[in-house]
């Protein structure tokens, strides 16, 4: 099918071709469009610098950076899924309970029935998918608001957890299962004082990033689109390489890349790509932005909503597995308030209550803001009581900043 052309003769005198925008204008435009995310990235940077100074350099020590990743991994996994749910215009209150239920199921399978851990892992993810499908069915096909369905789910799965475990904690788990949360890439090659495989991974990442940037720039040129000027482009590449190098060296000088980090990276890249570039991702944004219009444009609204919740279910299960592996036990009170942390991370990372807005990358940023705050405040000895108060203010400030910005631009 060829493109349908409509050479509309203009009734108004045609405007003169707009001059090429200046580089500063291009930057400003990009910044304005991504205000919230860049704003939060800057805020994250400031928080890191603040605690780095306050803790006398402990925050960014290799072992603490590794620790940060491990501590926050399950919340980040949940935040990625939650972000997608919120973009679609819904909410999921059940993820903490579901994670607990899945970790309890893992514990019962492996400890009581001696199921091989790989099989237990697969069953755990299937349980998550089924739970997500269950909730997705009521939300998408029956039309019950997600708040209600997942509130019910929160009770159901929490109850299920307590039925499975009673008041016991079940553990320990097989070594392989524990490694999901506590394992690192193996050390290989000559002794260089650094973790070789991590260095290799970092180098590969730099290569991939640079090739991607150059290719995308070339394609933009081919389509005669505006590109960043040479100088800025190089500056951007240098900054990205520097960030990767710093992070790689930090991890490599401790025990290397944790397994969970690979998992997170895969989720970030995979789901980030789906949300940004895949047709399905577009449909999620369209649904959240205006469900009626999306439907009349041929978006299969029910199916998309259903799969968004299946995805959330699987991610919740994954978070449950990671949490159980870290704790090396299944406990009836696992995952309490996880859903709230994930929701907070999403909103700090740029989601909007009415849906249609946000990115997977934003969820990670939001999760890290909370994570660094937690870690940093613990390091300087602020009690959990005051930590909660401060996190509450941060959430309020982040969303308030966004609301203020929208008003300023929009009026």
């Amino acid at each position, binding site marked *: 099918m060829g493109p349908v052309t409509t050479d509309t003769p203009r009734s108004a005198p045609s405007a003169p071709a707009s001059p090429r925008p200046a580089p500063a204008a291009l930057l400003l435009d990009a910044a304005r469009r991504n205000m919230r995310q860049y704003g939060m990235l800057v805020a994250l940077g400031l928080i890191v610098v603040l605690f780095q100074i306050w803790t006398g350099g402990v925050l960014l020590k290799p072992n603490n950076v590794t620790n940060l990743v491990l501590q926050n991994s399950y919340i980040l996994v949940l935040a990625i899924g939650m972000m997608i749910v919120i973009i679609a215009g819904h909410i999921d209150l059940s993820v903490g309970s579901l994670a607990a239920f899945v970790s309890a199921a893992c514990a019962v399978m492996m400890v009581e029935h001696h199921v091989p851990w790989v099989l237990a892992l697969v069953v755990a993810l299937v349980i998550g998918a089924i739970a997500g499908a269950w909730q997705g069915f009521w939300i998408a096909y029956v039309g019950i608001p997600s708040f209600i369905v997942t509130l019910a789910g929160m009770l159901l799965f929490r109850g299920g957890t307590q039925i499975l475990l009673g008041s016991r904690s079940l553990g320990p788990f097989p070594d392989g299962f524990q490694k999901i949360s506590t394992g690192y890439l193996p050390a290989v090659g000559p002794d260089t004082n650094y973790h070789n495989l991590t260095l290799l991974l970092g180098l590969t990442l730099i290569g991939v990033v640079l090739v991607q940037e150059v290719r995308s720039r070339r394609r933009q040129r081919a389509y005669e689109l505006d590109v960043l000027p040479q100088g800025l482009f190089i500056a951007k590449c240098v900054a990205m390489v520097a960030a990767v190098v710093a992070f790689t060296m930090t991890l490599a000088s401790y025990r290397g890349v944790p397994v969970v980090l690979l998992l997170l990276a895969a989720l970030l890249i995979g789901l980030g790509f789906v949300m940004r570039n895949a047709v399905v991702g577009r449909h999620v944004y369209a649904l959240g932005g205006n469900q009626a219009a999306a439907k*009349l444009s041929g978006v299969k609204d029910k199916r998309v909503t259903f799969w968004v919740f299946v995805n959330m279910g699987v991610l919740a299960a994954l978070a449950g597995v990671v949490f159980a592996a870290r704790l090396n036990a299944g406990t009836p009170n696992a995952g309490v308030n996880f859903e709230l942390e994930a929701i907070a991370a999403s909103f700090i990372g740029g989601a909007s209550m009415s849906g249609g807005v946000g990115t997977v990358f934003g969820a990670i940023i939001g999760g890290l803001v909370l994570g660094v705050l937690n870690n940093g405040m613990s390091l300087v000895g602020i009690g959990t009581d005051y930590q909660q108060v401060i996190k509450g203010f941060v959430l309020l400030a982040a969303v308030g900043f966004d609301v203020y910005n929208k008003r300023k631009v929009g009026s």
Partner: protein
Amino acid sequence: MSAPVQEAPAVLEMRSIVKTFPGVRALSDVSLTVAPGEVHAICGENGAGKSTLMKVLSGVHPHGSYEGDILFQGRPCAFKDIRASEARGIVIIHQELALVPYLSIAENIFLGNEHATRGIISWHETLKHASRLLKRVGLSEHPGTRVADIGVGKQQLVEIAKALSKEVKLLILDEPTAALNDDDSAHLLSLIRELRDQGITSIVISHKLNEIAAVADSVTVIRDGRTIETLDVRDPATTEDRIIRAMVGRDLDHRFPDRTPYDGDPGAHPALEVRGWTVHHPIDQQRKVVDDVSVRVRRGEIVGIAGLMGAGRTEFAMSLFGRSYGRNISGSVWKDGREIRTRTVPEAVGHGIAYVTEDRKQYGLNLIDTIARNITTAALGRVSRRGVVDEHEERRVAESYRRSMNIKAPTVFEQVGRLSGGNQQKVVLSKWIFAGPDVLILDEPTRGIDVGAKYEIYTVIDQLAAQGKAVVFISSELPELLGMCDRIYTMAAGRLTGEVPRAEATQEVLMRHMTTNNMTTDKR
């Protein structure tokens, strides 16, 4: 600028108002003089600055955020918010009604202004006072009725009753009839005249020139943030063409593109044929909203559907398009001589049918997303490979539509919600043209947009037909149907009541068919 010929001292004078937003100068130099006890119309293209001017007047844009002076009843005004202007008797009724749907009529009328002593509401007094106000605006509903349960026309009257409760002296109505049918519009306009006789001055923003002629005493035309002129409506020299010329700044010899009438082979299979289409109301399933409607459209033909509000035109179109409306739908759809299934929107789109909604904000656009992404939503497959969207290709496509459709926006990454109505409509049209349909159903494609943009959209429709697409054109504006269509169906109360070829169509003929309940002509 010519001042109106008026002897009485002005009730309202706005002098050289300048209002700038970051990056945009919305009003460059607007002056407005309104005589006491008159109905003063303001017209201008969308984006000309009418609404901004009224927001300045009513204190939505507070004093200090604009330059220039406002004198009301001879005294200068410095409103810091809406309450301040209402205290002086200036009340604005916005296009989007500001009523709370689940509160009663009476509660809405006195919202923020309750009949209460020490915070306790006196319901007797509220209801009594509300009944009195409802009588004054000619609304026969019980004041305890929920606003959600009455039609838009009646809601508009509730808004006016609310204004009256505030001892209004100057009533501002922003496109009051945009969402109303002809009966409700007529009632509203006569109410505005009655209020004038009671000494209430009104400012009416309107696109509908016949309404201005019917209700206004004088009209001020605004273009590109400047006052162009004020005309006396009773002056015979003030014709519709005269006003249009002032609005667009050029002569419009014809409001419609010259169209070569359809001369295709009448024996060929119609591109789209619908037989015996019947649709029941989604809630009241006994009621037939569309009753045994059969229509056909050929390639290259523009076929109109005329009808008053509630005739079932939109319901017919939406039920046809993937059963997006109604229950118990029966009848068959044929395309190029073969029966097709259009039970879901993707099926309908797959068969080359496109439906451009009458309500672009609710059903047509994702207002928080960009122009580019809105244009591609209905045919993402055409800019993607193996389920992955090619953003560069998407941008190229969007750019080409921005240019060819003359969408006024700096880039295709502009949020659609920030565009004017006409430009939003062009985005919706682009979306469906990009989907590459054979049959386009256009539901009120020019509703609420200005004269210049209307002409551009007519031209696009004309070209689509010239490319061999079949076009169904649903409209409430008869001149538009007469100017554009090769053949016009009329509907009334869910039934098809007439089929009139271009040569025989006049407003009178169509209106007669639209107001009967039986099929009066039966051509072929």
